[in-house]
Every structure is written in C-alpha cells, then in structure tokens.
C-alpha cells in the first residue's frame, strides 16, 4: 500500500506499466502481420481491406496506449497518416480509371488480362483491397491522434 500512497502524495506523472509495454512489443509485429494477411486475402476469405486496415491501425493504438500518445505521435510523424491515405486513394483511382482507359467500365479488372497479367480479376481485387486497407489504416491512425490532440489543446497531428 505504501507505494500507492507515495504516488498519490507525490502526484507524480503516470508512468506506463513495463508489463503492458513488453506485451505490446511482443504482440505488435504479429498483429501487424495479421492485419496485412487479412488485407491480402480479401478476395477469397473473410476479411478484406477495411478489416485489415483497422487491424493495422490497432497496432498504432496499442503503441499509443502503452507508450504514451505524444511519444507515439513523435515516432509516427505528422505526415505518415496523410501520406498513407493519399497513396491509397491514388492507387484506387489509378486501378479504377486504368480499366476505363482500356475501354472497360470503372474498376472492371478483367480488362487488365489483355495486358498479359494472369488472374487479372483476382489480382485487381487484391490490389484495390490493399489500397482500401492502406486508406483505412491511415484514417484510423490519423483520427486517433486527432481525437487525442483535441483533448489537450488543439494541436492536430
């Protein structure tokens, strides 16, 4: 009990628990891999871009909770979420409009087969799922930091 009294009296800063930090360190790469796995397997199993993106975003949330939001924000940097969303949107548009340029409808992947890409439909869907996943991951991360920043004084991420 003495420890808690000391902490209350001292009013010292809340220090993250090393146990939570170590667990997050260990679990994180596997969660990240799992998120990417779900993203890549959107076409033929449960999952897809949205789910995978959220799981990848979760990695950042875990870091933020275990190590402190400011620390994580410094590590991620302000540009990364924005860059992710931008890249994802560009990739999506590129695939969508690409099929239009080849004379088919928007996002009609089968037409890429004419360029000699095997399983054009499948890979097309994978690619778009991946783009969506990247967008979602970027948005989840960005929103998390934006909400956290809103509470302590309006500096946005």
């Amino acid at each position: 009990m003495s420890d808690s009294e000391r902490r209350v009296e001292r009013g010292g800063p809340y220090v993250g628990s090393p146990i939570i930090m170590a667990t997050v360190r260990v679990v994180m790469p596997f969660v990240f891999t799992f998120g990417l796995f779900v993203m890549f397997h959107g076409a033929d199993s449960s999952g897809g871009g949205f789910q995978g993106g959220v799981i990848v975003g979760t990695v950042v949330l875990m870091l933020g909770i275990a190590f402190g939001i400011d620390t994580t924000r410094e590590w991620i940097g302000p540009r990364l979420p924005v860059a992710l969303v931008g890249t994802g949107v560009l990739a999506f548009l590129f695939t969508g409009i690409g099929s239009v340029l080849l004379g088919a409808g928007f996002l009609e992947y089968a037409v890429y087969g004419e360029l000699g890409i095997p399983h054009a439909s499948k890979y097309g869907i994978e690619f778009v799922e991946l783009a969506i996943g990247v967008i979602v991951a970027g948005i989840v991360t960005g929103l998390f930091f934006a909400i956290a920043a809103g509470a302590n004084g309006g500096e946005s991420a």
Partner: protein
Amino acid sequence: MTPREIAVVALVAGGVFFAVVAAVGLIRLPDVYARAHSASKSETLGAVLTLGAVAASYGVGFNALKVLLLLLFMFLTNPTAAHAITRAAHELGIEPWTGDEGDEP
C-alpha cells in the same frame, strides 16, 4: 465413441467447468483484485481446455495450429489485461479487501 470424441468431450467438460468456476468467483469474491484472480485464471484454463477441444476436433492440421495460435495470444494478453485493470484500480486508490471489515460477501 472414438478416442478423439472422448477427448473432445472431456476437454469441453473441463473447459465449461472452469468457466463456471470463474463466473461463480466473479459473483462471490469480495473485491476487484479477488475477482481479477478468478477472471484471469479460471478463465484462462477454461480457454485452454475448450480451445484444446476445438483443436482436437480439427485433428492434426493447419486449423488446429491456428487454434493454438489463438490460444497463445490469449495466454499472452489475458494476464496483461488483468494486470492493466488491477493496476488502474490500484492507481485509483481502491483498497484491497482484507476480511476485517466484517461484511462477509
């Protein structure tokens, strides 16, 4: 019954038993810390046995391996979660029940 069926039934029965123990503990025990004991332990063994049953029902193969992964993940995270919760309780200054306040649960 095949040996595998017997194994599945036995494991499931064990799992449900410990889940029930965890639930009873969650009701009967007097404070946060004691309840965390029951939730983090009986619950984990319940998970081990039940997921063991699931793995056994799949037989040897990738699905069983996936169940084991799930199990490993719960093994890593459940105690950490219990620690996080009780740490927060401790930090909030919730006093542990020591039995001398008189009121039996």
